[in-house]
């Protein structure tokens, strides 16, 4: 059932004019000074799983400076079958994604085939910043598990844009005919209710995992709670939109819906982001990400590819060891770990006693 990436070849991708990498082991350490392209290599792997970058929305930013296109080609293996995944950004700005030579008509159909979890230094924003990052976290997991979720989420976002645009086009109080608004409300409710139900049961499942991992990583007996906040707990979607219609018309945008959802995080009954220390934040970030990993693993029946970027900078030795032994030894998925210090990463991987490969950039 194992999912493995055996090699990747990059052409004009970020800082790589042309470069091939072979991955001969389940655990791959990547070392090199800052700016040598460690994160970029992980992002290229992410591309093959998600058809896009982990960091930027614009594909053209990822073409080597001075060029307009790039190519990422990977050889993967799953369940004993080989796959060739190719992502090309043409000079014209058109992106193509092919699996075994067949171009996808919709990139979204690829999502979830090669599940993958990225942990990057800036991800702590998920805890400290606005709700969008936390929705993105839920959506990334559910989209990989449920193609219908992803489809409905994309529909919902398109409908939201149309509805908002329609609200702007009718000036206040001049809406004589509410038919079109009612149609948008029905369409939004239909997709939105599905998304809400999925998020709700997801959060129920996630909570236990997160508290478990948090305890394991921090080694402390702190009480972590996650609460799924949504206006839909109280009203069903159609009623909700009805109740906010006047306000929506006045403000010319859709003020209620699953695009306002959030996860409230509590530490010993207080808002986590107000009282948590750096260390606690990092522990929680890893707990969230490892829950993502575990959720994907248990639903898919095999471990996702894990991309750990600069994790040694983020946690102290003992926490790090707890984490590494769990991801490397208790799981059979493929793991990529980057670090600026070759010696440090080597020592960590040695103490684990598992086979590993070290790539120096």
């Amino acid at each position, binding site marked *: 059932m194992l999912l493995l990436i055996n090699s990747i070849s990059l052409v004009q991708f970020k800082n790589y004019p042309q470069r091939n990498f072979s991955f001969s082991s389940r655990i791959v350490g990547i070392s090199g000074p800052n700016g040598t392209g460690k994160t970029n290599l992980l992002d290229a792997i992410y591309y093959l799983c998600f058809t896009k970058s982990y960091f930027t929305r614009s594909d053209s930013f990822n073409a080597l400076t001075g060029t307009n296109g790039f190519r990422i080609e990977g050889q993967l293996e799953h369940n004993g079958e080989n796959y060739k995944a190719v992502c090309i950004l043409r000079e014209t700005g058109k992106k193509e994604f092919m699996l075994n030579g067949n171009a996808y008509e919709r990139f979204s159909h690829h999502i979830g085939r090669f599940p993958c979890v990225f942990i990057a230094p800036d991800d702590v924003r998920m805890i400290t910043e606005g709700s969008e990052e936390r929705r993105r976290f839920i959506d990334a997991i559910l989209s990989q598990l449920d193609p219908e979720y992803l489809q409905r989420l994309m529909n919902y976002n398109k409908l939201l844009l*149309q509805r908002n645009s329609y609200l702007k086009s009718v000036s206040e109080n001049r809406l004589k005919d509410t038919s079109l608004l009612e149609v948008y409300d029905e*369409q939004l409710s239909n997709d939105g209710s599905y998304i809400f139900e999925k998020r709700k049961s997801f959060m129920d499942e996630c909570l236990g995992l997160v508290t478990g991992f948090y305890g394991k990583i921090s080694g402390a007996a702190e009480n972590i709670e996650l609460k799924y906040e949504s206006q839909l707990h109280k009203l069903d979607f159609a009623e909700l939109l009805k109740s906010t219609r006047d306000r929506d018309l006045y403000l010319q945008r859709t003020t209620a819906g699953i695009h306002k959802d959030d996860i409230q995080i509590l530490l010993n009954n207080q808002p986590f982001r107000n009282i948590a220390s750096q260390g606690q934040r990092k522990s929680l970030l890893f707990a969230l990400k490892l829950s993502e990993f575990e959720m994907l693993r248990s639903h898919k029946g095999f471990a996702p590819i894990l991309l750990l970027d600069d994790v040694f900078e983020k946690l102290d030795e003992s926490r790090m060891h707890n984490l590494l032994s769990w991801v490397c030894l208790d799981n059979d998925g493929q793991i990529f770990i980057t670090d600026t210090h070759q010696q440090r990463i080597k020592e960590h991987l040695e103490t684990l006693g598992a086979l590993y490969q070290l790539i120096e950039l």
Partner: protein
Amino acid sequence: MQFSSSLLEDAVNEFARLPGIGKKTALRLVLHLVKQDAALVQSFGETVLKMRQEIKFCQRCCNISDADVCSICSNSMRRHEMVCVVENIRDVIAIESTQQYNGTYHVLGGIISPLDGVGPDQLNIELLINRVQKENVQELIFALNPTIQGDTTIYYIQKKLQPHSINITTIARGIAFGGELEYADEMTLARSLQNRVPVERFVNY
């Protein structure tokens, strides 16, 4: 591009204004016309001019027409109780090419998309509603591309027609043709016309 003749240059510029025609292609077309018999080119020009000046839109279905009412609407052999609702004239041509459809049409002239500045008022929806009210229409077949905006348009028209009891169906969408109606091959299109399904309250993906 440098021209030794402004007559040539003007003609090239006119051709280059057509969709999908660049300067180079325009030059090739114009040079081709230069080589042709003057009478042939005259007939070419007159045909285009006459087409533009005399073309009409059918008052009933908004299809392109030579007369006030198009040849499909005025054909008594066709089943007038069946109306196929399409986005544009190219869709009419695509469906007619299948030779499998014997009803009439209604051309909306687009689909509802406020993001693109298209609301219901910009489309021939009112006319369709009136048509259903006045004529003995028994079935509306929606042949719109399978997009969110297509769905919105179907639901909107369905809502507007709610007091009337007519059959509202949609051609098998999404599976039958990938993408644009006009690019669907005739077999697939004919099949999806035959396998039309009732519009439920919501189309399930």
